[in-house]
């Protein structure tokens, strides 16, 4: 990007996909208990982790997230009975795919945070924020997004020659 922007210290952008009934309530509890934690996280509320599609995680990275947190109810406590069981399998598979394609898995964190675990929410978010701060910005997806790469190379010698030949 532009050289001027490097003056500021890097502040990680974190996106958290959370379930309404447990983690969101847990985060709310952290708030009402006036616990302090880094404000880098942007929370997106879902009814259940079972609704969280891997494509949302990809989109978060593509649109500028440096780290992603996915958090829901503990197994057995899902408000919809089995949503988090399906999510557990889905994300186990998705992690392997991400790793195979070359995404650093340290940028993606999964957790079970219940409605009573305000402290755990604070701990998970703080740890992830500091880890991402050490790792730096997520370059890979952002470079992809910025790249205007068409299937045909526009800088071929023939095209250059034709361009230069225009009177």
């Amino acid at each position, binding site marked *: 990007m532009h050289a001027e922007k490097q003056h500021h210290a890097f502040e990680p952008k974190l996106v958290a996909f959370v379930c309404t009934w447990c983690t969101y309530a847990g985060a709310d509890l952290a708030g009402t208990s006036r616990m302090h934690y880094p404000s880098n996280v942007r929370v997106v509320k879902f009814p259940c982790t079972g609704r969280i599609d*891997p*494509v949302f995680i990809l989109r978060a990275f593509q649109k500028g997230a440096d780290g992603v947190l996915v958090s829901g109810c503990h197994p057995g406590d899902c408000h919809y009975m089995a949503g988090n069981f399906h999510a557990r399998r889905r994300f186990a598979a998705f992690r*392997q795919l991400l790793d195979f*394609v070359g995404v650093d898995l340290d940028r993606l964190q999964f957790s079970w945070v219940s409605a009573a675990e305000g402290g755990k929410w604070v701990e998970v978010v703080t740890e992830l924020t500091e880890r991402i701060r050490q790792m730096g910005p997520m370059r890979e997806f952002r470079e992809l997004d910025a790249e205007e790469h068409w299937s045909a190379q526009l800088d071929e010698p023939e095209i250059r020659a034709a361009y230069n030949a225009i009177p």
Partner: protein
Amino acid sequence: MTSNHQNTETPLIDPACYAAATAAIRTEAVRLLVAGEVAAVVGYRAGRRTGSVMPDVATTVEAAGQLLFSPACQNNLALFLSKAKREVLPHGRVAIVVKGCDLRALAGLIGESQLRRDEVHVIGVACPGVFGANADLSKPLSAEGLARKCRACKVHLPEGVDLVAGTLPPLPDLPDLEAEEIARLEAMTPQERWAFWTEQFSRCIRCLACRQICPFCFCTQCLCDRNRPQAVDTSPRPAGNTAWHMVRAMHLAGRCSGCAECERVCPMDIPLNLLNRKMAQELYELYGFEASMQPQEQTPLTSYRDNDDQSFIK
């Protein structure tokens, strides 16, 4: 008896086995149509170029007599049996010619209620192997021309079918190139893997041939088409291309039959089957799941156990 050295005169696989399968398919197809047991036989017939074949829906005895099986029979005909694609076939019971990999797709479709087992008469071919992508179909089948997937095949002999066409000849013993490539990628650092895959995906022109040829991509509205909200960028730029291939790999995880048609039809030679095979490996390691020639009760991502691995979850 296996042979590691192949001179240009000895075919890789005895061609007589393909001729035998052809004869068996023709006999069965004619019998079924004459008896009125099926409305059509979905199989392969000779294409226009030397050595090529094309899918055929044979509804007459004459057409049934033209069906064949050769190393050029690359297409996965189970594609035509999902609900979305079924309209190309006449109504009523149909017969279908399937190789082992195609049979896994058929079994998967039955498992997903796209059709019932009793609606289809399955002619399974004892398949020693077919040509791969970009092979010269007019030449005899060679180790270079053989599809990579065929080197790792464990389903040469179909099971649970209504007829097995042909018998297996001695099979060549060739190294599993796909497994080697996956191992090579797994040994790289994440940065190297990212560089590899972004280079592959940068060639993608989003023709979506991979999706069109896949028996399991039968959604009438694909998540990666134009939608509101837009999940994946549809233009052929690196960001959308990467997302497209990853989303497709996820949507196929636990369903993909390993027919590798996606890789064969890709005009830009992107090694798509590596992604699908890697996911299949992971699902086997995690949940003991393998694609099967018989319809399965559960697929790994539509079921769960209480003690599934959650070591990656805080």
